[in-house]
């Protein structure tokens, strides 16, 4: 058993949970993407700065080794400098670079820019300032073991701030380096004197003996990235929310509008229905009062006339007048019966059933046998009519009324002929009663199904038959009409039931 727990306003609330969740997720995704993209951009930028510095240092190293040293040796060999002269200030590229870097940092400081940390780190340093710490030692080993790795990059925390740490191996030791980094005894005298320890000696060729490492702060950039990511995603969320609520609002407004429109349409059609019903009712009371009053006038007036004739001894027309009175009375009775009948068709009284139209038509033909004989008319019924879902009795009445109508309005036709058939066109099925009687003038084809709209004053009947036909067919949801090329050309009365009333017979 389920219990309905919906509270007023809950549905509305729940309706907003989904969009809020979606918005949050989207916001997180967008913020992450923006944050990542921005920090990647800023790290790349920091990396670019670092590389720039390192490469410039590398250029300096190369200049010292490739230009300064040969020039100096040439001068020494030419005897311009003492054979054993040595000073790291002139000879050691690492010494020179380190000092240049500290001047560089001073300049940065003066310019109000953040200083850039730079270190040459060696596991066997000649100068203790170049000593590698544990992680730098690991890196030197890593670069030596993996020759395809050319750089190392890491975001590290130093004193609570974020830095990008970057390291590359220093120049590979070659034979020219061995002069000063090989056996102590082979090194220049001055060098030996300056560096008494074993550090920096006993190096082998083909090895990276050091790394150059550099680090720049990236905290500022990350903060900028975060702020940017947040503001952009906030803007995005605001836009999305706006868009969403706008759409939501539009949907609600549209729903309301279409409901209202549908209501208006329905009300209009109901009003139109009512108007038709009202008009019919008005016409009904009008016709009924007229049609009942007419025979009443006949009855009253002719009784008066008969009375007068009786007192004045004029008997010749009394019998005829009595007949008139009697006929008028009969007419009133028939009229009242028909009215009762018509009022009963308000609803289909009987359940719908599958009805074989051929059987139904045959029954109707039997019912009009008297009239048929009287008129000497012939009725042909098309074989293999479809089976129809309908109120058997009522549709039987429709057919009988149409047959009677055809027989009554045969006029002077010497060979009265009636055909009951079915016509299939444009996917619809139409039953028809075709006669070669007096026909219906185009002007009256609309009115002919109205109450008491008899077209010929002299003819029999109360004018209620076709109204009954229309009522029954319309109660079935169908339509009824008459086709005639005019007076004297016969007429075809057609009725069509909705397609779903036609039972598949094949």
């Amino acid at each position: 058993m389920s219990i309905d727990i919906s509270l007023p306003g809950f549905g509305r609330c729940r309706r907003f949970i989904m969009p809020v969740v979606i918005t949050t997720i989207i916001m997180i995704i967008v913020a992450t993407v923006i944050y990542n993209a921005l920090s990647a951009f800023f790290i790349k930028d920091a990396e670019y700065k670092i590389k720039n510095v390192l490469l410039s240092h590398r250029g300096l190293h190369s200049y010292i080794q490739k230009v300064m040293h040969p020039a100096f040796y040439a001068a020494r060999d030419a005897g311009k400098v003492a054979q054993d002269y040595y000073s790291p200030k002139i000879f050691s590229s690492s010494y020179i670079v380190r000092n240049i870097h500290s001047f560089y940092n001073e300049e940065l400081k003066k310019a109000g820019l953040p200083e850039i940390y730079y270190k040459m780190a060696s596991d066997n340093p000649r100068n203790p300032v170049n000593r590698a710490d544990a992680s730098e030692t690991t890196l030197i080993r890593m670069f030596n073991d993996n020759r395809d790795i050319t750089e190392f990059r890491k975001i590290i925390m130093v004193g609570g701030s974020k830095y990008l740490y970057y390291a590359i191996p220093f120049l590979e030791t070659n034979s020219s380096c061995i002069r000063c980094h090989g056996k102590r005894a082979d090194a220049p005298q001055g060098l030996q004197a300056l560096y008494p320890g074993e550090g920096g000696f006993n190096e082998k060729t083909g090895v990276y003996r050091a790394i150059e490492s550099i680090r720049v702060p990236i905290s500022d950039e990350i903060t900028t990235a975060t702020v940017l990511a947040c503001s952009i995603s906030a803007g995005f969320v605001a836009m999305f929310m706006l868009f969403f609520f706008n759409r939501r609002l539009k949907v609600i407004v549209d729903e309301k509008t279409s409901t209202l429109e549908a209501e208006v349409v329905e009300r209009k059609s109901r009003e139109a229905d009512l108007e038709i019903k009202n008009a019919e009712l008005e016409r009904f009371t009008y016709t009924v009062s007229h049609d009942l009053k007419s025979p009443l006038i006949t009855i009253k007036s002719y009784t008066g006339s008969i009375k007068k004739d009786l007192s004045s001894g004029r008997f010749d027309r009394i019998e005829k007048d009595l007949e008139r009175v009697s006929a008028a009375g009969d007419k009133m009775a028939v009229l009242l019966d028909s009215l009762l009948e018509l009022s009963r068709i308000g609803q289909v009284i009987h359940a719908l059933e599958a009805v074989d139209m051929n059987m139904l038509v045959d029954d109707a033909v039997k019912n009009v046998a008297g009239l048929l004989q009287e008129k000497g008319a012939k009725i042909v019924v098309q074989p293999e009519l479809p089976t129809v879902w309908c109120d058997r009795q009522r549709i039987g009445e429709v057919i009988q009324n149409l047959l009677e109508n055809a027989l009554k309005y045969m006029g002077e036709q010497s060979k009265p002929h009636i055909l009951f058939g079915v016509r299939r066109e444009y996917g619809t099925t139409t039953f028809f009663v075709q006669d070669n009687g007096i026909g219906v003038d185009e002007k009256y084809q609309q009115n002919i199904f109205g109450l008491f709209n008899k077209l010929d004053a002299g003819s029999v009947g109360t004018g209620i038959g076709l109204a009954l036909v229309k009522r029954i067919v319309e109660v079935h949801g169908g339509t009824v009409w008459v086709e005639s090329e005019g007076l004297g050309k016969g007429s075809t009365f057609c009725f069509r039931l909705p397609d779903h009333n036609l039972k598949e017979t094949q």
Partner: protein
Amino acid sequence: MNGEPLTILLVEDNPDHAELVMRNMEDSQVANRIIHVEDGEAALDYLFGRAGYADRNSFPLPHLMLLDLRLPKIDGLQVLKEVKTNAALKALPVVVLTTSAAERDMAMAYEYHANSYVTKPVSFEEFSKLLGDLGFYWLAWNKRPW
């Protein structure tokens, strides 16, 4: 009366009522001739001299028309409208004689310039009196257009 032949055109689809009118008119002896047609179409054919009514000697223009409203083929109101909008016919006195006491019918009849509107009385005496009075007024007292 003065020897001038006076003609009434009676447009009535109910044969009993037509007979009643003719009987009473004959009794009152105002008109020399009553021509009876059963529907609106025949009435217009007669008035316009169409369809077998062309000969004005046998079918003279009436001096009064008694017109029922609910008529087969062409409605009484339509007949009235045609008559009253026709330059040659509009002077013809038209008395609407009907069972209908409906306000709409009466309003429409006057709208189309009916000269008089009377409902058929139910009793024979009243019917006789009405027709006598009508005939007398419209054919004797009233100045006829032709």
